[in-house]
């Protein structure tokens, strides 16, 4: 059964990841590249805009377009163009394989029948837990946006994902009213506590572009979850039939 888990995760992730990588190439990536031009422009003017009060940080992941004295340029990154597209696609495929693993872990642990319908329901819940709920606190960001310290955001993200996933499971799988109530409280809790935010906005990317990116990236994550879940729902029964014959 471990072999089946590996086979189905890898195949489902590969197929769904390829489809969504193509979608990313024409949706989110062009906006990221556009934002980087604003980020580079901001970097050149950075000294005059250094008005943070300690919480806000601008981290220029790609370095300024011009040479900054003392900046280390030895850092590796994929070259713009084909290499960058290939890396982005490979990472998207790896993420899809990871999503497929999580879906299978949940469904096998719950003892569910794994078919297209049930896998899509789990996939939708996966998107709510790993995509929608954390994005309500930490909106999808373009490069150049000001944000709180990365570790704090990652911690809040993780806590929100665990709380939302557990909350959804309790709400959907148990009949007791007090458990359903506890599930709702659990789902709301991270948002009551609140996500870490920067003290002041710093991005020079137009709000329209950032807003478009936020909705696009959530749509793309939803597509990745649903495509992965659909592939899992198709491939698991196929792999099980093969295992039964063997």
């Amino acid at each position: 059964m471990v072999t089946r888990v590996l086979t189905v995760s890898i195949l489902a992730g590969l197929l769904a990841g390829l489809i969504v990588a193509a979608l990313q190439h024409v949706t989110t990536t062009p906006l990221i590249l556009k934002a980087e031009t604003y980020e580079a422009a901001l970097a050149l003017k950075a000294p005059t805009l250094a008005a943070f009060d300690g919480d806000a940080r601008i981290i220029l992941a790609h370095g300024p377009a011009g040479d900054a004295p003392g900046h280390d340029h030895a850092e590796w990154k994929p070259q713009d163009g084909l290499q960058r597209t290939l890396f982005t696609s490979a990472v998207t495929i790896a993420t899809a394989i990871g999503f497929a693993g999580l879906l299978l872990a949940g469904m096998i642990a719950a003892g569910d029948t794994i078919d297209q319908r049930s896998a899509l329901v789990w996939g939708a819940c996966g998107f709510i837990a790993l995509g929608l709920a954390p994005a309500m606190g930490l909106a999808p960001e373009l490069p150049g946006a000001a944000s709180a310290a990365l570790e704090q955001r990652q911690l809040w993200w993780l806590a929100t994902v665990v709380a939302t996933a557990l909350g959804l499971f309790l709400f959907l799988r148990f009949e007791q009213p007090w458990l359903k109530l506890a599930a709702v409280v659990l789902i709301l809790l991270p948002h009551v506590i609140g996500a870490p935010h920067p003290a002041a906005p710093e991005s020079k990317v137009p709000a329209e572009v950032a807003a478009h990116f936020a909705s696009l990236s959530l749509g793309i994550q939803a597509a990745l979850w649903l495509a992965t879940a659909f592939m899992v729902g198709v491939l698991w029964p196929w792999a099980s039939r093969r295992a039964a014959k063997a």
Partner: protein
Amino acid sequence: MNTVSVYTPTLSVSDRVKAVTAALVIGVALIYTTGFAASTNVHNAAHDTRHGLAFPCH
């Protein structure tokens, strides 16, 4: 849609535990690497996907 049951409930508990563990390891390890690993090289390679899928980046 294909709703034919193919899950075999006769699987032993230890088989299921192993399968769930394997699936969890794949899921957590890959999502950690693509979405969260702090290594600069991994970050740079994964950059557009992290932004594109709304993971906390930078």
